[in-house]
């Protein structure tokens, strides 16, 4: 029997089965689970935030109890188990390399082969008398229900998209109401995804900084350190504003900004920020610098907003590629002209 660490804090005992003892899950989250979720939202320890893939028990399951299948990302696991208070069920956790159901299904890690392998390894057929698995609906891109049946004899029923509907789904005789089959993308969820967008940009920004400050030093006196500092910090502020526009403001305002392309939404927010900034500092910046701000900020915001497509549950790869082919040349042209305006503005003093 593989050891299960009680230090993980979500187990409180064992349930005896013909296939050996199965650890039992606690259905309540503790402060450390909330803190853990917050940390991975910021990308801290995200790759290690996983639990042991195996069979678990919720409540006091019997051989007739339903089998719920999920991923071994700890955040996914917590989202499921906190909905299982008062539910008697088996939970089969797949090895998805610590990735959530939706993304793992897209990669095939939450997939037909892994379902079959885990059903066989856990000796599920000895534990339950029925032959049915309940999979989260968003696992369907990686799993072929009819091939799972062929592979291990278990039929697949796709449950609701969200774990919060699982009790109702079970109570209704494994039927999902139409609204339980649709993804949503509410404000709170969009907000929770923005930290990762910013964290992901820290490295490229760090690499760009030396170049930015070097260019900032170019002035009437060939190269000036004070100019590098002044114009460099101003450029960094523009870059930061563009990132906040594309990675925070655009995602939050997503459904209310007109146009469908994310690059256009982001450019629009960037243009608003640029116009406000230029108006606010109109006494400090010359006409060429103003043009530089008006080109740079929308370009950055547009590019960053375009990358938010990956965090949404509704953009198609065909659509994103079409958008990118049109947007990237425009973003590059805006960025290039911003640099020209910026340097000529500095040379003009």
């Amino acid at each position, binding site marked *: 029997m593989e050891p299960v660490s009680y230090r993980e804090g979500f187990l409180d005992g064992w349930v005896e089965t013909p296939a050996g003892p199965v650890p039992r899950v606690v259905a309540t989250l503790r402060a450390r689970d909330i803190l853990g979720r917050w940390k991975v939202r910021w990308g801290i320890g995200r790759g290690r935030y996983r639990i042991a893939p195996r069979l678990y028990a919720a409540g006091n399951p019997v051989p007739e109890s339903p089998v719920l299948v999920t991923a071994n990302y700890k955040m996914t696991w917590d989202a499921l188990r906190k909905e299982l208070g008062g539910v008697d069920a088996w939970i089969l956790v797949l090895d998805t390399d610590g990735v959530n159901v939706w993304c793992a299904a897209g990669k095939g890690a939450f997939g037909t082969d892994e379902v079959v392998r885990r059903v066989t390894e856990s000796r599920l057929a000895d534990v339950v008398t029925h032959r049915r698995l309940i999979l989260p609906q968003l696992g369907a891109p990686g799993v072929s229900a009819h091939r799972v049946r062929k592979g291990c004899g278990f039929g697949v029923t796709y449950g609701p998209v969200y774990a919060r509907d699982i009790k109702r789904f079970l109570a209704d005789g494994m039927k999902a109401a139409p609204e339980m089959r649709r993804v949503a993308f509410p404000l709170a969820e969009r907000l929770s995804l923005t930290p990762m967008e910013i964290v992901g940009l820290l490295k490229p920004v760090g690499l760009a900084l030396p170049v930015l400050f070097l260019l900032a030093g170019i002035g009437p006196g060939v190269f000036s350190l004070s100019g590098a500092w002044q114009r460099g910090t101003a450029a960094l502020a523009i870059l930061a504003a563009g990132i906040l526009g594309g990675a925070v403001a655009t995602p939050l305002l997503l459904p209310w900004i007109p146009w469908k392309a*994310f690059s256009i939404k982001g450019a629009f927010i960037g243009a608003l920020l640029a116009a406000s900034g230029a108006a606010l500092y109109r006494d400090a910046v010359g006409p060429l610098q103003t043009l530089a701000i008006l080109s740079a900020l929308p370009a950055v915001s547009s590019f960053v907003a375009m990358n938010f497509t990956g965090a949404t549950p509704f953009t198609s790869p065909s659509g994103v590629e079409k958008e990118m082919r049109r947007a990237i040349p425009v973003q590059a042209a805006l960025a290039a002209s911003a640099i020209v305006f910026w340097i000529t503005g500095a040379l003009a003093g």
Partner: protein
Amino acid sequence: MNGFRYLEGVATVRLAEASCTGCGMCAKVCPHGVFSVPDGKARIIDRDACMECGACAMNCPGNAITVSPGVGCATSILNGWLSGSKPSCAC
């Protein structure tokens, strides 16, 4: 998903009605209501809502559905262009 419509006329999902067995799996697994199975045959009722996740094709026992599946993620597509291989995300 009101307010969350993406580009129109690009989705690659296609349905060969002749091969459809009317099992209804496509309508069940689709998170965007692209399919309807009104009278024993599936129909595409909202192609532009499709995000090409591939769940329908994966779960169609009659192989009646084709779609070029993938993740609608700019970073992933950019990585694919830069490395000259398949799109790959870091998520």
